[in-house]
């Protein structure tokens, strides 16, 4: 066990993968000599060579497309898109190639790969370095979408993703890259895909969240001594329906927190699932505390991100309902 931040944990996972298996290849912009703009791949190119940790030309569609072709030809690529905000030119590759190859070839061709990308705001990145686009990916059959909220899960989920057998969109909450610290095993271990984690037990209200909002929620719950059951989803596609339903059945009161815009965000799907499968357990309305339906602003990002005031307002509102 070593204390690491999320950047170090991810680096440790990739170091492990590269050392273990020669077919593991990293590709992305500035990931080699520069070690990545967030230093997640620091030192890996000098250790494993330029042909395994590839500094790519500035072309997202090429990075993703090339990684798919590698995966189809026996390599195990981990591709990085520098900011999730820049992924859109590669969406054709992601949606029409990566996600559909297994299905359309009757299982003859599969795409075992990981596409890593930092997402979310709170780093003064403005419109184009702050987006939370998880819904775009979670709406696509054939993809699997994960997002860790701490160093332990980051490494464990990345190791699991590489053995998953299907393409995984690996969303890294960049706000937590260095602020989130914790004990991480030095060797190999797994955090299973598709399993949420009940990170704090309580009986009065369920708070369902993921990624960058997890530490925020935990701090608030602790500060206000709320008897909350807090769920860190960890995987957004497929959602852990059992974890969601069991917390709802336990508390009957639900607040969903994410920083992506409210309309058709993950909260919408979670609310619908609860309404369909556990409406009899509900003791109040399901409330969402999310980013607004506006672009992510530069100057006033603290107003965009769900904060203590808004989360507490929702928690108090459901807890005092009825």
């Amino acid at each position, binding site marked *: 066990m070593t204390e690491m931040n999320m950047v170090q944990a991810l680096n440790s996972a990739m170091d492990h993968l590269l050392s273990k298996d020669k077919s593991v290849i990293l590709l992305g912009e500035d990931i080699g000599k520069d070690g990545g703009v967030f230093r997640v791949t620091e030192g890996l190119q000098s250790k494993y060579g330029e042909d395994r940790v590839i500094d790519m030309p500035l072309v997202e569609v090429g990075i993703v497309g090339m990684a798919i072709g590698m995966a189809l030809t026996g390599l195990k690529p981990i591709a990085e898109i520098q900011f999730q905000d820049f992924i859109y030119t590669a969406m*054709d590759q992601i949606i029409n190639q990566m996600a559909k190859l297994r299905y359309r070839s009757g299982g003859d061709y599969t795409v075992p790969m990981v596409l890593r990308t930092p997402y979310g705001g709170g780093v003064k990145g403005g419109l184009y370095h702050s987006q939370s686009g998880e819904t775009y990916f979670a709406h696509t059959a054939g993809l699997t979408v994960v997002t860790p909220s701490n160093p332990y899960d980051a490494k464990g989920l990345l190791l699991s993703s590489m053995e998953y057998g299907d393409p995984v969109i690996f969303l890294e909450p960049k706000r937590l890259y260095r602020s989130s610290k914790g004990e991480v095993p030095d060797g190999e271990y797994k955090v299973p895909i598709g399993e949420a984690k009940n990170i704090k037990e309580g009986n009065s209200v369920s708070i369902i969240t993921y990624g960058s909002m997890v530490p925020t929620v935990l701090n608030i719950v602790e500060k206000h001594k709320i008897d909350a059951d807090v769920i860190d989803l960890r995987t957004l596609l497929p959602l852990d329906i059992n974890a969601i339903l069991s917390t709802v059945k336990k508390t009957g009161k639900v607040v969903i927190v994410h920083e992506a815009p409210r309309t058709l965000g993950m909260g919408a799907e979670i609310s619908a699932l609860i309404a369909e499968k556990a409406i009899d357990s509900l003791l109040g309305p399901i409330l969402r505390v999310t980013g607004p339906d506006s672009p992510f602003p530069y100057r006033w990002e603290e107003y965009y991100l769900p904060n203590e005031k808004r989360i507490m307002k929702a928690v108090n509102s459901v807890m005092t309902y009825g």
Partner: protein
Amino acid sequence: MPEDSEERNKFIKAYTAMVLSRTLDRKIVTSQRQGRVGFYTPTMGQEALQVGASMAMETADLIYGYYRDVPLMLHRGVPIETIINQIMGNDSDRAKGRQMPSHFSSKEFNFMSVQSPVATNLPLATGAAYALKYQKKKNIVLATFGDGSSSTPDFHAALNLAGVFELPVVFLCENNGWAISLPVERQTKVEIWTKAEAYGIKGVKADGNNFVDTYEKVNEAVKRAREGKGATLVEATSFRMGPHSTSDDPTKYRTENVEEGSEKDPIVVSEKILKQRKYVDDKMIENIKSRTHKLVEEKFNECEKISPPNPSTAFEGVYKNTTWMLKEEVEDIL
């Protein structure tokens, strides 16, 4: 007739594949009109260039093709049943009718599953080529696409990457003159093969109506790729003798066409080449045509008898392990 020579056998095989493709093309289009087939993108006019390219490839080479590559597949040895079953979307289709007709796949013959969005196969081909180079294999990648694809971001991305990483890939532009209704003159201001220069790869033009010329140009490109000398863009010019697809009416946008059996028909051009070299005579040509016709009729009727796939297969194979959502949804549907 001369003794059996290696070239004679090769040329007869090439010609036979072209005739087979043309015969199949006609059969499918007719069947579509009769409501026996849902849709098709005819290949008519592109037989010579595809077969010429295929002649330069080994089975272990990887093909990243598009939805108009039937002659190439047939020449490569893909059984005609594989093509017909895919078009019918029946139970013997590997993908169980999930894809619309013309979207073939054959792992056995290293022919990558075909997509609709044009040129999205090209970045994949560079990734595959990178892998082969990294694994120190001698095999190469052939990526095919139409003239319209040369306008896309994926074309640019792929050729640029192939240049930067000196990849063992041959880009074969099947320039049939049309992207649905847009003529190539309105697609791009320059000849497509000249774009290679911008990416630091080799560019070459082939007469796509002449399978020997296309073979020679592609073979040279394949040789360079195998020797580690990098990528080539081959533009093979031909004619789209049919419509874009069976849903398309070309009389709306074009007045001239190459008629079947006319001097520019690549099958006619090929017959001339084979006759000049005294590899075939009229009788043999007739023989090949009638044999092929019989084969197509026979296989078509056989495949038509195969039952449709079980509806449940439409929702299988999305993931290695299906999701709980899909299980639940399928239970509701079936």
